[in-house]
């Protein structure tokens, strides 16, 4: 079990949102701690699930655009 602080840092590492010094520090931890690497991999897999396994229903986009446009037609934007 990793410290929650490290877990949070690993996720930011994955997202690329750490400043360079912290990124380098987490990189060193990953080099020497298999458990941290396994944790990072599990988050990577989770993100892959998000991207590949969350399908959208098919929509007839042009028809939807036309309907929205038609619904808006009688209105006027505020100045």
């Amino acid at each position, binding site marked *: 079990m990793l410290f929650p602080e490290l877990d949070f840092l690993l996720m930011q590492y994955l997202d690329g949102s750490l400043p360079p010094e912290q990124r380098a520090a987490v990189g060193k931890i990953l080099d020497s701690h298999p458990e941290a690497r396994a944790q990072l991999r599990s988050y990577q897999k989770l993100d892959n699930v998000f991207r590949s396994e969350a399908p959208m*229903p098919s*929509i007839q986009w042009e028809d939807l655009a036309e309907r929205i*446009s038609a619904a*808006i037609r009688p209105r006027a*934007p505020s100045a």
Partner: protein
Amino acid sequence: MAILNFPATSNLPMDRVSFPMTRRATEFDEDRLVTPPTDATLVQRTLAGNRAAFDVLIRRYQRQAVSVSYRLLGSSQDALEVTQDAFLRAFVNLGSLKKPEAFGGWLLRIVSNLSLNFRRGRKSRSQLPLDDLLASSDTTSANGHSIGNLAIGYVDPAHQLQSAEMGRRLRKALRQLPDRQRSAIILFAIEQMPQKQVARTLGCSVEAVKWHVFQGRKRLREVLKDYL
């Protein structure tokens, strides 16, 4: 008409060229523009009375709007209704948008808020018959062909079953997350919006977005551990 992007070999006078098309062409047709107009330009032109400019914004953002709403609500029918309502509100309140270039984030904030409100209220019927816009896999004609406009590629049945099960679990797990975590996960991890934009959309700090995503991912990883 210099904004139209013609092949270099074309020697036809630009004002005499017509295009085969299924809908009315406008000066904003993105497929034909060298440089598509920015959101800021489109907002300003809409406010100046050009409705066609807002139609471009609709086409530019409707997919993301439906996607965000669908993932927040778990119902495509409700997502279509919310999306339509969100565009309507955006249009009517366009003059209150301080930064026209931030239209996308602003719209998605409206979509998110409406979706969360909708979820709380769970209206059971829509004002417009939007069912026919759905071209899901069960929307097939008698001869087995898809009625929808969108092409649906072949998917291996075994993979489809596994994906369907995982998708079902993911949607269920997402529904169980607190609103903020669910919204942050959907916008950042699924829709892949930058954290800054997610923060603007949710009306919180970037640090708060990171925290919500962190908490949400931890929870989802637990629920989906059999698949990871």
